[in-house]
């Protein structure tokens, strides 16, 4: 049975069940889980790193981390929450590794925009807008709006208070809206955490 057909057979099996079987050594269950979530892992890495090649490297590291660490998933949270945390950490680690390595020149924005997988991103230059965001804002926005994690899940994944998550998301969205031309809408008002005092 091919991995694709096995994944199809297991399409109705919840992630938690597959994770439990994978944790017990069921390689087919682990393969199904990885196959099922590889695109989401890649999307997280792609949006956090903003570079297709780095994103693929980070995706591979995240997949390996999931395969090795599946025994540590305790089923107390949603599997995807744990998965996105692993993917986020892999992406951030890859970004730090890249930052330590000297680069002759920065990749031109056109090169990234020319990637065929970026048909939508090229038009709106999402990568460029995300790159300009501070890392903590970028991660928070990606986890909230791409991965659909709620504040509590993001707070658990990042190890910060929910209020901090809320603030980071608000500021990140606002900055993104401004960078993307806002598409005719007004930027988000600052939250009480970020509003300047004395005005």
């Amino acid at each position, binding site marked *: 049975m091919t*991995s694709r057909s096995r994944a199809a057979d297991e399409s109705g099996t919840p992630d938690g069940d597959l994770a439990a079987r994978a944790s017990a050594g069921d390689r087919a269950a682990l393969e199904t889980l990885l196959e099922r979530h590889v695109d989401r892992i890649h*999307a997280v890495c792609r949006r956090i790193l903003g570079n297709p090649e780095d994103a693929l490297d980070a995706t591979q590291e995240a997949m390996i981390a*999931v*395969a090795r660490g599946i025994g540590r998933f305790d089923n107390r949270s949603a599997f995807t929450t744990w998965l996105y945390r692993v993917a986020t950490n892999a992406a951030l680690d890859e970004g730090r590794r890249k930052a330590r390595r000297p680069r002759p020149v920065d990749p031109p924005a056109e090169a990234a925009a020319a990637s065929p997988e970026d048909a939508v991103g090229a038009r709106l230059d*999402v990568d460029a807008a995300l790159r300009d965001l501070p890392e903590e804002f970028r991660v928070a926005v990606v986890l909230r709006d791409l991965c659909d994690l709620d504040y509590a899940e993001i707070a658990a994944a990042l190890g910060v208070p929910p209020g901090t998550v809320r603030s980071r998301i608000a500021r990140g969205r606002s900055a*993104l809206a401004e960078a993307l031309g806002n598409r005719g809408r007004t930027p988000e008002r600052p939250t009480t955490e970020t509003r300047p005092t004395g005005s």
Partner: protein
Amino acid sequence: MTDDLPPDERDDELASLLEVPPLDDGTRERLVTRALDDAGPRRGARRLTRLLVPAAAALVALVLFGVGVFVLVNRDEDNAGTAARSRPPAAAAPGERGSAPDASSSAEAVTGVRDVGELGDVTDSSELRRRVRAQLDEAPASSRAAPPRCLERAVAGSPSPTAYGTGTHRDRPVLVLVLPATGDRSTLVVLDTRTCQAVSVFDLA
């Protein structure tokens, strides 16, 4: 894009902008295969380690338990022993010594336990090992008239000795027992024949 959202609400418009197209099949398969290959041997090794470590620990514990039980049994028996046993041999009446259980035991009590004879001064453990090995390799079975003191109890215990000899340890008379252990190793237990207590325990190898 964001200003009219209630708290903790996903921004669908931004979500659509952040979406990334799916990977092609070749890349997906390569990523999955590499992850499985990388994790496979390590997971196998961890499972093997998880099995071997407890097994080794159990084996060591079993050997230690056997030796410990033997020593404790002898010690307990000695503590609850008779006044005659606690008296030095010189203080015992000649008749009493002759009728002591050890001395009165017949050779059947030690049947199957090889006597390697007199080993001399066994205070030095390495010398004791050498002598025991030499005697086990070369000495013919001895025909001791009566089994030495403490041997009967040792034979009744578990594990039962496979061989025994006599000697002195710091000028005190001792009984040397060869006990079976793991693999090709045996354990030597040196008992003070006046108290039947172990004074030394070590590997024969």
